[in-house]
């Protein structure tokens, strides 16, 4: 064994939430535990349409490896997904499809808009391109870039993780959230 010197990278486990600790027990709020669990096991739904999708492939592949952040498992079914990653241009023809996918996702759901096209239409200020997906669905985090580097996409996922961890339990039942959805025409 000693002949093979294994270089170990410094691993950091998920941090314990704040709470009361004693011999054999640990007390904290349910919200924090659930937040921690959700944060580290996000199932993304890749809605990859164009160039950014290729960068997403790079993000998933061995070099950058999104799996390190708890998102190894892609969910291609919207029903099981937590995070909708919209990558690439959304044309007006595609808009209703995107909205339908969003509506099919179960709460709680988050949306990451990757790339300039998804965020604002980007360089394609044209008759056929939707000028930002936030016109049809609410977006949590925007990642700029055309296309963004994999590091940026990872950073966007980390930002989503922060949101997931700190989200209040009752947010999705609040009237503000309902009003937000209603403003997009989603019941």
């Amino acid at each position: 064994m000693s002949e093979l010197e294994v270089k170990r990278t410094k691993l950091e486990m998920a941090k314990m939430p704040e709470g009361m600790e004693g011999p054999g027990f640990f007390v904290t709020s349910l919200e924090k535990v659930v937040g921690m669990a959700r944060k580290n096991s996000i199932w993304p739904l890749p809605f990859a349409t164009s160039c950014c999708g290729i960068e997403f492939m790079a993000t998933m592949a061995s070099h950058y490896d999104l799996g390190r952040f708890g998102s190894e498992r892609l969910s291609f079914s919207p029903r099981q997904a937590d995070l909708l990653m919209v990558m690439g241009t959304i044309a007006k023809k595609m808009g209703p499809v995107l909205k339908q996918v969003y509506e099919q996702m179960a709460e709680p759901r988050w949306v990451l808009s990757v790339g300039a096209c998804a965020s604002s239409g980007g360089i394609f200020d044209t008759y056929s391109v939707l000028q930002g997906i936030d016109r049809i669905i609410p977006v949590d985090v925007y990642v700029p870039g055309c296309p963004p580097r994999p590091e940026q996409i990872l950073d966007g996922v980390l930002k989503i993780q922060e949101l997931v961890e700190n989200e209040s339990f009752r947010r999705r039942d609040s009237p503000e959230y309902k009003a937000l959805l209603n403003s997009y025409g989603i019941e």
Partner: protein
Amino acid sequence: MSNHDIGKLAEPEEKVYTTLNLGPTHPATHGIFQNVLKMDGEIIVEAEPTIGYIHRAFEKLAERRPYNQVTPITDRLNYCSSPINNMGWHMTVEKLIGAELPKRVEYMRVVVMELARIADHIICNSVIGVDTGAMTGFLYIFQWREKIYDIYEQICGARLTTNIGRIGGFERNFSDKVWSLIDDFVRDFPKGLTEFSNLLERNRIFMDRTINAGPVSQKMALEYSFTGPNLRAAGIDHDVRVMNPYSSYQDFDFTIPIGTQGDVYDRFMVRQQEMWESLSIIKQALKNIDRKSPVFSGDVPEFVLPEKAEVYNNMEALIYHFKIVMGETEVPAGEVYHSVEGGNGELGYYLISDGGRTPYRLHMRRPCFIYYQAYPEIIKGSMLSDAILTMSSMNVIAGELDA
């Protein structure tokens, strides 16, 4: 239905077909294509493709942009091999204005274009692997794409949508780092590609899965104007690099790999072999490039940005600098067509110039758009899972398809 009828096979005339809506965002289709399939069990009877889900109006956009600002649009055509698209556009404009480039620049372009072809084929072939259920190949070979990204980054600063080079040459000379990265790549890539080949090429499961899946006959390929690897897999040795050599391709010695029956396996193998050929072209180019030479663009003052020191001290340079940045370059009126061998086949630009600052009309011959219309006919009568493989092996890139 009485009890007697249960278990009896349905008569042909009462056959029930199911309709399957595949796409636009099906996990098995890479990119967004919709196919409404009429299925008899698992056999496809009819397919009706719908495209246009990321139509971005490239051709209209190009009519509003000065010539050197069209390059970023071409990046997003076949985004797996942007540099080839960029170079194709540069060469089209150079043909319009009659610019001649030094050999060194042309060879540098060849190096970049062949790297892009390798990058393109890596995506396509690794994805064929993924679709047959072999994720490993993808994870291994994608590492080499990252190395090509590193080279792009050193040349132009971008990874995927590169906007590499300028009309009339390159934006700057290749640095020593670029040359050393290319050297490393050329030295090490054979190892990676061999590893990938060993995983798939003679793999029994892969062969059983891909041979005879989605075959394309020569007649059909010609009728549907196939070009590129898909045509060559059907057994026709047509390659724009040989047919109408551009950028000094006539100086290089390479073979055009062809298949025999145009099925998924042939398309895969043609692309595999093309990667080896590309590698050999890069080696030949590297041998003949003078790395210390300061020449990185032709004598095209209308489009090549002058040195900053010149701009401060020389009136002409200042005028050109201003004109290029503001996109006010004059070009002759005329119609040109120039095509290059893109990752998927003959990528052509048909440019009508009326002498103004922007193209009057730019039509792009996108190989994907043209050969994808044969898809319903190819998959007719095949299994659903073969249809998925056929699509990924045809390397249909949404950006190029929908323009």
